[in-house]
């Protein structure tokens, strides 16, 4: 799998960027999913008429 040195460096750079982007995509995606879950829970509590103060305790 011979590659010219400059081509290898470009590929290394692209793979490194891909790894960092994937890391952040997974982390941010999870936080967004958690925020959606939290909002759905709040709506469910309101729908059931559960007192927010009771839930907070």
């Amino acid at each position: 799998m011979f590659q010219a040195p400059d081509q290898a460096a470009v590929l290394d750079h692209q793979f490194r960027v891909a790894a960092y982007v994937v890391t952040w995509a997974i982390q941010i995606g999870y936080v967004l999913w958690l925020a959606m879950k939290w909002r759905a829970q709040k709506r469910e509590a309101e729908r059931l008429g559960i007192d927010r103060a009771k839930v907070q305790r």
Partner: protein
Amino acid sequence: MKRFAIGLYVTVTAVLLAWGYYQAIYVAPNDAMQGEIFRIIYYHVPSFATAFTFYSISFLGSIAFLSYRRSRPAWAQIADGWAVAGAEVGVVFCTVGLTTGPLWARRAWGIWWTWDARLTTTLVLWLIYVSYLLLRRFSAGPQMQTLAAVLGIFGALDVPIVYMANRWWRTQHPAPVFGGDSNSGMDPSMVGALMWNMLAWFAWGFLILGIRFYVERHHQKIAAAEAKAALEA
């Protein structure tokens, strides 16, 4: 005061992540053999270190849940909250590790994946905790938490096996960088970048672990309030 402390923690975490990125990209030198692709280690290793820590939290939470589920139900619910938060955030970090690893391997080894001892045990660990989360998602009833706690304990037993895999068996995965034989170690010019990223990802991890625990406690309290309302009706 609480809001200020949380805001401060979030700010410090954001600064640490930015500083860690700066260290990894602009301060640490390219590896003499691997070139730029080596810089994946600054996200890959902290991700697994964080995942293993959170699986350990899940393990302790599961043990505490099983210990207190009859004698102190309120404590057991808190323990279960930590168990599920640890497992879920652990899966997130483990997913990052299992994704960044093959990206490095494709350039370093020429292959995306191999059934090496370290890789295989890590995949098994990920699958165990994904099944733990699926069990919690799709089963109901009073036994669900108990079954999940037992699965969480068995899952965590794989963590030391994953850690020791490239010490016990010499296969494709690189030998341990730290705590290995006399040839292990890292160039001092690279250690700082790794440690800053370790600190940053732990700070980020504990932030989302805390949020996940809070969401789970909120869920438990809604379920309890709902059950109480149904009884009173």
